[in-house]
């Protein structure tokens, strides 16, 4: 389809392992965003990409979190040495340009045992 695609849809892993989440934005969208949705916490902004650069990393909760975007398209969010508090739904969104409405993917549900 033409929407934002995220993989995997579900990920269960043991505490301490590294995980990598993938986002394929809508073709042509220059802006890409990662959010985290936890129960009762709403959506927490993590990082924003304009093209391949990340002008705003202010939301990354710790240095265990990192993200990259290559070719102005696909982005990966990596969480190293996962902790139980990392359990959440990780959402990716893209927009044609900054400040335009964002289109969301279905998210990756991450469960840390």
């Amino acid at each position, binding site marked *: 389809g033409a929407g934002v695609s995220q993989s995997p849809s579900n990920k269960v892993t043991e505490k301490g392992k590294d995980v990598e989440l993938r986002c394929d934005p809508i073709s042509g969208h220059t802006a890409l965003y990662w959010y985290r949705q936890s129960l009762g*916490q*709403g959506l*927490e*902004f993590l990082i924003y990409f304009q093209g391949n650069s990340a002008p705003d990393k202010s*939301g990354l909760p710790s240095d265990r979190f990192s993200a990259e975007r290559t070719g102005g398209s696909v982005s990966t969010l990596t969480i190293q040495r996962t902790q139980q508090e990392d359990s959440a739904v990780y*959402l990716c969104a893209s927009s044609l340009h900054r*400040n335009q*409405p964002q289109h*969301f993917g279905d998210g990756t549900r991450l469960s840390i045992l």
Partner: protein
Amino acid sequence: AQSVSQHNHHVILSEAASLELGCNYSYGGTVNLFWYVQYPGQHLQLLLKYFSGDPLVKGIKGFEAEFIKSKFSFNLRKPSVQWSDTAEYFCAVILSGNTPLVFGKGTRLSVIA
């Protein structure tokens, strides 16, 4: 820090009742305002947006929202709700300049027959 407040955590209405969900933001400058909806098991979708012009904006499915600058509010309304409106509703604000989209914590709407 800028923030978005949604006053109601969970709203329960009967079909045909009128709906108003509150949203307030804390920023005095130029803002772009959004309401997103997340139906059960689905991804976030844009309901409506305000960038400029007429402060009363119409969205999909009969929803509307009014931007009242003096009250820093962008409340969502619908004159008569349906069972299919059961979902979680998120207000979001993006400030002028290079800032991320800030979401409220969401309001869960349950419509009962």
